C-alpha cells in the first residue's frame, strides 16, 4: 500500500471517532497509534476493563465502533515525520515505513505539564499521568508511603480511582495558587451549561475527604533523598515518602504540528499553552492537515470525540464526498453538542491556572535530559536570549532524547517570566522531524 485517503494519528477518543466517521463515508483509513490497544490516555485499556462509569461507557462504545469500522489500525506504531504533500513516515516492528495520505487528521492528545520542583528528577518521583497508566493497564495502586501533589482535575480523578480500588495515599498536597474560585466565578454561568463537569469535580474532592485522606494547601514542596526519594518537605514540614506523584494539568501535544512547515500556532492565554491555529472544522493553516481533540486545545474526552467526527466530515467535504451544505446539515447536532461540552472550559482553566514559573528556584533542574537548571536559563536570558530556540543553542536545554517534549512548557514559561513579557511573544521550541527518536537501523531500512 503506497496511498491512503485519510491517515489518522492516534487512537484516543478523537482518533477513534474520526476513523469511524471517515470509514462510514467510504474512505480508506489508516490509523497509527503508539499504544497496544485503542483508547488513548483517557480510555486506556477500556476494552479490557469492566465498565464502571459514564466515561468508561463512552470509551467502550467508541472502541467497539472503531474496531468494527474496517479502518487499517496499526497499534505500536510511532509516526515520526510528515513531508510536504502528505507523505507520512512511521516506525512499526523495528522498521521505518511510509505512505502518502490525501488528508491527515492528527489526534495526538495532550501531554502533562512538567512540575519542576527541587528533587523532581529523583527516582520515586513521577507524574500522576504515568501512575494512572499503571492503574488502568495493570490495576496497580501506589504502595508504601505515597503522596500526590500539584493541582488540576486529573489529580483529583486519580486520587478517586486509587481510593475506589482500595488503595490509599498519605495526603494530597494542593499547590494551586489561592483565589482560584474567585477568579473562576466570572466563568461560572457559562460553565453551568454543562454542569456535569462541576458536579463531578466537587464529588471527587468530597470522596477524598470522606476517605480520611488529608488535603493540605502548600506553596513550597521539595523532594529529597540519597539516590532515590526518601522524604518530601511541605512548606518546611518533612514527611517520609516512597512515592511522589506530581501533576499540573495538561497541554496540547503539538510536537508534530509544530514541525510541519507553515502550520501556524497561537498562544492560548486562558490555558497558558500553544495550540495550532484551527478553524471550526479542525483545519490547520496547511492544506490537507487537520487536528482534532486535545492536541488542538484542551477540551477533554467528549469534546475530542465530537471534534474527531467533525474533522472527518470536513475531510469528506474536501475530498468531494460531501457538499458544503450536506456537511453543514449532517454536522449540525454534533456541532451544537461540541459547543455545549466546551462551555465549562474557561471556568476550569481559571480555577486551575498552572503553577507560576517565576517561583521556580534557580537551582531546580528544568531540562532533565541535559540537566539544565532554571538559573542557567535565566542566565541565558540575561545574555540576550529572547526565546526557547536561542536558550537551546546556549544551554542545550531541550536537545536531549526527549527533544523538549517534557521540558518545553517550563522552558518557555521561565523565559517569559524572566523577561517579564507576555508568553505569547516568546518563541517556543521549534520542533523538527523526526519528532520521536528512531534508530539509524530503522531509518536505514528505507534506503533499500
Amino acid at each position, binding site marked *: 500500500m503506497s496511498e491512503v485517503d485519510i491517515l489518522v494519528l492516534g487512537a484516543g477518543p478523537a482518533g477513534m471517532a474520526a476513523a469511524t466517521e471517515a470509514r462510514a463515508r467510504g474512505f480508506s483509513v489508516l490509523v497509527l497509534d503508539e499504544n497496544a490497544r485503542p483508547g488513548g490516555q483517557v480510555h486506556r485499556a477500556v476494552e479490557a476493563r469492566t465498565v464502571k462509569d459514564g466515561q468508561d461507557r463512552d470509551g467502550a462504545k467508541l472502541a467497539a465502533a472503531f474496531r468494527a469500522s474496517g479502518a487499517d489500525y496499526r497499534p505500536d506504531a510511532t509516526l515520526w515525520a510528515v*513531508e510536504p504533500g502528505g507523505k507520512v513516515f512511521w516506525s512499526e516492528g523495528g522498521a521505518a515505513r511510509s505512505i502518502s495520505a490525501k488528508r491527515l487528521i492528527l489526534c495526538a492528545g495532550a501531554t502533562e505539564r512538567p512540575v519542576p520542583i527541587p528533587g523532581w528528577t529523583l527516582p520515586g518521583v513521577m507524574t500522576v499521568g504515568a501512575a494512572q497508566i499503571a492503574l488502568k493497564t495493570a490495576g496497580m495502586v501506589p504502595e508504601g508511603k505515597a503522596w500526590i501533589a500539584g493541582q488540576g482535575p486529573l489529580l483529583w480523578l486519580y486520587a478517586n480511582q486509587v481510593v475506589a480500588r482500595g488503595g490509599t495515599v498519605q495526603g494530597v498536597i494542593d499547590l494551586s495558587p489561592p483565589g482560584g474560585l474567585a477568579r473562576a466565578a466570572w466563568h461560572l454561568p457559562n460553565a453551568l451549561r454543562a454542569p456535569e463537569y462541576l458536579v463531578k469535580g466537587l464529588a471527587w474532592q468530597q470522596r477524598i475527604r470522606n476517605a480520611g485522606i488529608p488535603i493540605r494547601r502548600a506553596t513550597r514542596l521539595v523532594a529529597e533523598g540519597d539516590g532515590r526519594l526518601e522524604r518530601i518537605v511541605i512548606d518546611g514540614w518533612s514527611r517520609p515518602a516512597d512515592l511522589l506523584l506530581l501533576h499540573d494539568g495538561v497541554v496540547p501535544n503539538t510536537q508534530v504540528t509544530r514541525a510541519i512547515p507553515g502550520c501556524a500556532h497561537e498562544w492560548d492565554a486562558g490555558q497558558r499553552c500553544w495550540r495550532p491555529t484551527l478553524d471550526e472544522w479542525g483545519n490547520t493553516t496547511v492544506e490537507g492537515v487537520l487536528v482534532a481533540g486535545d492536541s488542538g486545545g484542551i477540551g477533554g474526552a467528549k469534546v475530542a470525540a465530537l471534534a474527531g467526527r467533525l474533522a472527518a466530515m470536513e475531510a469528506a467535504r474536501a475530498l468531494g464526498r460531501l457538499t458544503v451544505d450536506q456537511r453543514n446539515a449532517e454536522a449540525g447536532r454534533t456541532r451544537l453538542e461540541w459547543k455545549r461540552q466546551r462551555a465549562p472550559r474557561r471556568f476550569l482553566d481559571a480555577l486551575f491556572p498552572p503553577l507560576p514559573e517565576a517561583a521556580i528556584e534557580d537551582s531546580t533542574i528544568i531540562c532533565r535530559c541535559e540537566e539544565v537548571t532554571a538559573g542557567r536559563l535565566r542566565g541565558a536570558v540575561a545574555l540576550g536570549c529572547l526565546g526557547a530556540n536561542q536558550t537551546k543553542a546556549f544551554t542545550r536545554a531541550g536537545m536531549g532524547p526527549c*527533544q523538549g517534549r517534557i521540558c518545553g512548557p517550563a522552558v518557555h514559561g521561565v523565559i517569559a517570566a524572566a523577561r517579564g513579557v507576555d508568553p505569547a511573544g516568546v518563541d517556543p521550541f521549534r520542533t523538527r522531524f523526526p519528532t520521536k527518536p528512531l534508530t539509524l*537501523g530503522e531509518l536505514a531500512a*528505507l534506503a533499500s
Partner: protein
Amino acid sequence: MARTSESAGPMKKAVVIGGGLHGLSTALHLQRTPGWQVTVLERRHVGRHSSGVNAGGVRRLGRDLREIALSVVSAEMWAGIEKIVGDDCGFRATGQVKVAESPADMAKNEARVAAVKALGWSHEEVVDQAEVRRLLPAVAPHVIGALVTRDDGSADPMRTVMAFRRAAEQAGVRIIEGVAVTGLRATADGTIIVETDQGGHEAERVANCAGAWATRVARMVGEEIPCGVKASMMIVTERLPPFCDPTVGATSRSLSFKQVANGTVVIGGGHQGVNDVAAETSTVLFGSLAHAARISCELFPVMKGARMVRSWAGIEARTADEVPIIGESRAMPGLFHSFGFSGHGFQLSPAAGAAVAELLARGATNLPIAAFHQDRFTRAA
C-alpha cells in the same frame, strides 16, 4: 579596540552583504586593515543558514586540487584560531579519515595522493587496514584502508560564528541584523549605494557574501552568474560513549560522520533535502536521508541501535564545479563576490575572508584565489 587610520584622511567605508561566516570573516579582516570602517548587513540574524548548521568539518583532505592552496593557508589559521578570534571555536585536530571499502577505492586513494604530492603538498597519506583499525576501532571489517590527513579536524559551527561575530564587533565592525538589501547603485563619485528596506548605505567597496542568495545580489547589478543551491541534510544522534575521534568519510560513498565532544554523532555527507530559497526554508527528505543512515550503519555496525534525535538541512549556494566564486564584479567595479562554497566553505572561511578583505582594500591579493573567478562560468573558453 578599533585601530584608527594611519593617514589623517577619513575612514573608507565598506559594506559586507551577508552575516554568515564568510561575511563575518571578510568584515573582521578588513576592519583590521588600517583606514577601513566595515558594516555587515544581514537579512535575518548572524549565522542563520548554513554557517550555523553545517557539520563543522575542518578538512583539507580530498579537496578539489584548485582549492588545496587556500585550504592549506586556512588550516594554518585554524591551528591558531584563538589568536585570530579570541576563542578556540571548539576546533579539535582529531584527523579526517576517508575509508576505502574495495581494492578499487585503494587504487583511487593512491592516485589521489600522487596527484596531491605532484603539486607539492604532503598532508594526505594512504594507510593500510591495520592503521585504519587503530584510528577507527569501531569500523566494519570490510574496510581495508583509508586516506588520512592527521591534523585536519572539526570545530563547532555556531560557536565559530559567534566567535567571529564577537571579534568583528570588538574590532569595530557594525553588524546590522534584520535588514534586507534591495538594490545597488553606483554614484558619480565612484562609490556604491547599497539600498535596503531601511535606507541606503554608501561605501567605497562592497562584498557579496550572501550565500544561496548571492546570485540575486549579482542580478541587482545586471550580472548573471550561474549558480545553484543545495540543502545538505544532517542527522544528530543521542549521546553515545566515545568510540570515534576522527571525522570519517568514504572514498566512493557520500558520508560525513563525526562524534563530537559531547558524545552525539553528527552525520551528513551531502544527501539533499528540498530548498525553498524564496521562503528561506529547507525541508528534510527522509527517503534520501536514509542513505546516510544506511552508510553509517554499514561502516559502523554499532550505529544500528543508536537513536537519531534531530535532523535538519541548511541552504547553501552550489556552483557547477563545486568550487567557490571569488572575484570582482564585471558589472559594477568595487563590488566583490564571495559565495558558492558548495557545502565545504567552513574550513576555508578564515583564509577566504582574509583574501576578500585584501581584494576590497587594495584590489589584489597574494592569497591563492585566482582559480575562483566567476569568469570561468560567464565567459566562453
